[in-house]
């Protein structure tokens, strides 16, 4: 029973590869630095299927935000450059797309919400003005119509008495309300992809849950995909369908979320999960991953995690592992991991 289900899912996944909303292939982003060129994103491949939430986790500086900025065409200029790889959105190549065309997609097809709702609203405009501007950047409609859309959207994201709040100044709203406004601004044009970069980090825990609920609700309603970027494992466990773990510019492990949490395969992923306090066994000392993230201008030749890994072998220090398929633990979908431990298994192409 489980076998057929699994095979079906795998076939679906194969078929969906063609229909992926976003297909990032071998993405490499370079920056100049004082100690030579660095690659904050190095050979990253990701797929986001329609209606799916992909979690991208990693610590600060692992390249997760850079990946999303590359996707938006918003790498810091003039230094950040896409050196190699391709980003396809609905089959359309985004790498090398002109400024005007890229701008036409931003906010309309791909939207982004940022970490800090306190500062992502312009203090000199009312919330309505900002939503109206987002609408009018793409649609030739009158202010009154745009305003109606803004009110409608504010209502949709759960802001009470939206007709009144549309004229409110950002500083009059609480953090949770502001993040709702930010979400309204991002979703008012019904984009097919929402990039949420640490959407709840700056919020209280109870508000976090509300915002995530709202995002999930809107995602289902609008049939959009979400790229959820965070360093919070709990967040992806709750919200992501699939999860990719990034470390020093590389993806180390990618799997359906249940699988990743049920059977974490890469030593780094296991380390991350071990460092989270659990409800049971509070007396246990929390484990930390020893060592430090390698500097991007001074990466080890082999596996990037080698010098912090307790399973490190000679081979790990010399040669970087490709993706291997991790043994399944029941959940469905491809589980690939960049670690020599899984070398005996067949490689994922």
């Amino acid at each position, binding site marked *: 029973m489980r076998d057929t289900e699994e095979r079906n899912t795998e076939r679906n996944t194969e078929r969906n590869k063609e229909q992926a909303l976003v297909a990032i292939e071998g993405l490499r982003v370079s920056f100049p630095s004082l100690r030579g060129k660095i690659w904050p994103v190095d050979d990253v491949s990701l797929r986001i299927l329609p209606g799916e939430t992909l979690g991208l986790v990693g610590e600060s500086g692992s390249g997760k935000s850079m990946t999303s900025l590359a996707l*938006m065409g*918003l790498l810091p*200029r*003039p230094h950040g450059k896409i050196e190699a790889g391709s980003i396809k959105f609905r089959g359309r190549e985004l790498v090398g797309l002109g400024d005007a065309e890229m*701008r*036409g*997609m*931003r*906010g*309309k097809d791909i*939207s*982004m919400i*940022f*970490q*800090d709702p306190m*500062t*992502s*609203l*312009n*203090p*000199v*405009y009312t919330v309505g003005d*900002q939503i109206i*501007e*987002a609408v009018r*950047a*793409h649609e030739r409609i009158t202010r009154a119509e745009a305003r109606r859309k803004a009110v409608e959207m504010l209502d949709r994201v759960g802001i009470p008495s939206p007709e009144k709040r549309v004229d409110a100044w950002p500083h009059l709203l609480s953090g949770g309300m502001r993040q709702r406004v*930010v979400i309204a*601004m*991002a979703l008012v044009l019904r984009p097919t992809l929402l990039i949420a970069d640490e959407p709840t980090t700056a919020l209280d825990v109870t508000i976090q849950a509300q915002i995530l609920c709202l995002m999930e609700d809107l995602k289902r309603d609008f049939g959009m995909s979400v790229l959820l970027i965070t360093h919070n494992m709990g967040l992806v466990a709750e919200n992501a369908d699939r999860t990719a773990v990034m470390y020093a510019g590389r993806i180390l492990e990618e799997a359906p979320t249940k699988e990743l949490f049920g059977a974490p395969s890469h030593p780094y992923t296991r380390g991350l999960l071990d460092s989270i306090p659990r409800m049971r066994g509070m007396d246990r000392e929390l484990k930390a991953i020893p060592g430090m993230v390698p500097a991007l201008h001074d990466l080890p030749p082999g596996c990037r995690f080698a010098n912090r890994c307790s399973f490190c072998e000679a081979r790990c220090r010399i040669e970087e592992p490709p993706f291997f398929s991790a043994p399944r633990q029941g959940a469905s979908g491809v589980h690939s991991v960049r670690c020599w431990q899984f070398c005996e298994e067949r490689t994922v192409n």
Partner: protein
Amino acid sequence: MRFGFFLRRKVALAGFFFIALLLVVAVAAPFLARIPPQTLNPVDKLQPPGGAYLFGTDNFGRDVFSRVVYGARTSLTGGAGVVLFSTVLGVLIGAVAGYFRRTEAWLMRLVDVMMAFPPLLLALVLVSILGRGMVNVIVAVGVTYLTRTVRVVYALTLRIREEPYIEAAIASGVRPFDVVARHVIPNMLSPIIVQATFTFAFSLLDLAALDFLGLGIPPAVPSWGNMLSEGRMYLTRAPWLLIFPGASIVMTVLSFNLAGDVLRDRLDPQLRRKVEGV
């Protein structure tokens, strides 16, 4: 400390009051001055203040009070012109240089070169090239203040461009020009206003200096600088020719400075905290 702040507030209030008075005087000049400022009356030349002539008369018998009153018009127009010219152009250049990094090197080095000249000298050179006249003088002095405004706006733009709401605006597909015009510039209005009040104050001095050197507004037009220039020969015999226009300049510059201080304190809370912390 408390007392000092209180005192400064009162003095500043006087500054605002004087500016308001000056505006009224400038607007109502024809009603205040019974004698037109150009009317020559050689019989009554060099009359001391008091009597028929409130501020006395000059060497041509012109009413000093009328000339001071009409001079207020000239000065305020000149100052406003300089502020308008340097602020509009300065904000434009500074914001463009700060936001569109490709233009940065060119624009800012050009501004640096202009800053290398002593301001008054640069204004003198420009007036010599352009010729006398209100508009030319405004342009000449305006250019020297332009550089300061550009610097201030440029620095502010560099800071504001990194704000998350700018990123959010870009991410929602707003055009680069609209980002600058609608998001960057409105967020630095308060420092620009403060800068403008100081520009106004200092430009009055420069305008007067140009007049005094005979390179400003044509002598027939009543201006405080021209009055000083013409009256300086009579320093010992008729000091009122210098006292009234001179006092007007001092009072006006001081008032605008005080107003600028208070505006800065009010509009820039961070700076206020720093000042009060000392």
